[in-house]
């Protein structure tokens, strides 16, 4: 067990250090280009700069929840029920919730400047908000009492139920009403209506946020492993103490 602690502590490795350094470089470029180099939008003015944070964070949030679902399904399907899948699912969901919060906050700010309102009952917005609350619930389930195996089983099942839930929520809200601005970059015609530097900055943002996501998830799942090991060691120590106590009596 101490070998596990030694292997995972500190949580950084050469790979994560490279990813972290790359993330800092790319994000620094996005900040400079997004705030200074790129032009204003003809219609949206300065508010278009929010897009360089909003779009990548939304992309990462959805990616994180897909990873959580895949890792949870892998835990359920695999015969060994490797705890690595569970920790990866949990770490990915935690980071996803953080990026989803950033998406909702930046989206509200952009909406206030563009639509004149912080919130509109648009299907994509509403589904995103429901996704956020659903994964906050998922994280609450992960903190329920029980063994590591119970936590893994419960949270994997809840993640799978969320996969069932989200399309139903989205479809019901789409039937209810629709307002969100159409896709600008990934539109079905492949006709991109954006300045080259703006487009490059946006893609840089996506790459930078993805690097940050990978870095955070790798570190977080390693700290989760340390917590699990520490908890188990604490239990082993308590059992050993009781055994010693009973032998002395």
């Amino acid at each position: 067990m101490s070998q596990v602690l030694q292997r995972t502590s500190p949580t950084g490795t050469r790979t994560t250090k490279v990813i972290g350094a790359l993330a800092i470089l790319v994000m620094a470029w996005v900040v400079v280009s997004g705030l200074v180099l790129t032009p204003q939008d003809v219609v949206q003015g300065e508010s278009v700069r929010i897009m360089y944070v909003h779009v990548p964070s939304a992309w990462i949030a959805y990616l994180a929840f897909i990873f959580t679902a895949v890792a949870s399904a892998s835990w359920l399907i695999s015969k060994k029920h490797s705890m690595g899948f569970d920790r990866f699912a949990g770490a990915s969901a935690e980071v996803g919730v953080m990026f989803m919060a950033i998406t909702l906050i930046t989206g509200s700010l952009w909406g206030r400047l563009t639509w004149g309102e912080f919130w509109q009952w648009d299907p994509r917005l509403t589904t995103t908000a429901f996704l956020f609350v659903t994964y906050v619930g998922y994280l609450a389930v992960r903190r329920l009492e029980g063994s590591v195996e119970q936590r893994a089983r419960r949270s994997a099942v809840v993640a799978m139920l969320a996969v069932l839930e989200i399309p139903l929520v989205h479809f019901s809200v789409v039937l209810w009403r629709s307002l969100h601005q159409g896709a600008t970059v990934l539109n079905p015609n492949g006709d991109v209506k954006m300045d080259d530097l703006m487009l490059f900055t946006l893609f840089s943002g996506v790459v930078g946020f993805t690097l940050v996501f990978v870095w955070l998830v790798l570190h977080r799942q390693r700290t989760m492993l340390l917590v699990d090991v520490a908890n188990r060691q604490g239990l082993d120590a308590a059992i050993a103490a009781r055994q010693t106590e009973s032998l002395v009596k």
Partner: protein
Amino acid sequence: MKSDSPTRVGKGKVVTAVFLKDVQIELRSRVVTNQVLPFAGLVMVMFAFALDNDDVLQRVAGGLVWLATLFSLFIIVQRSFAVDTADGALDSLRVAGIDLSAVFFGKAIALAIKLIALEIVLICSAVILYRVDVSATGLVLLVTCVLCATSGLAFVGTLYGGLTAGAKGRETLLPLLLLPVVAPVLIAATRATEAAFGSGGAQTSEGWAWIGLLAVFAAVFGVGGSLAFGSLIDE
């Protein structure tokens, strides 16, 4: 010569036994009739105080009926599983070697019966307090809506009730988990009920599209719940 292998109880018998147990507990304790129904009735009156406009009340009556149902759902689900966890009955069922999907369906059917009783009272109070009218064709739509929406709510309520049973902070965790899941039921049931009531000039025919969504929801969580329930109550 007798076989040494234990006799496996049939799924239908387990469903019936669990259903009768839950109904019998309710008939003896009368929690739904003595506490939940008055609570739901009070919520309907409070909505009238808050909105304070007859036209608005008529317009939103469908939504208020289903909101009151959702608030009451949390109480009924928590009560249903509190009884089972208090004396370890859920653990006993789990270790008895019976099919846990049958336990899921037994508890879901019992929950559905309680919800239907509640919804009848809520719809009657909407007719009386909010002065909504229901035509004959609207009544057919309303009954179908109640059956489909209640099935979905009962499946989801049983599933997440089983997950949070015995957990610390279950009173707050259950709404946090349930509310996002039941959002499609709230939207679809409200629109179908508004069509049945004719609220805001809605036609009865407009409501049938929402029944499809309610049926899909019930089917998805009926199947998903029967598969997941055993894993979620495993302690």
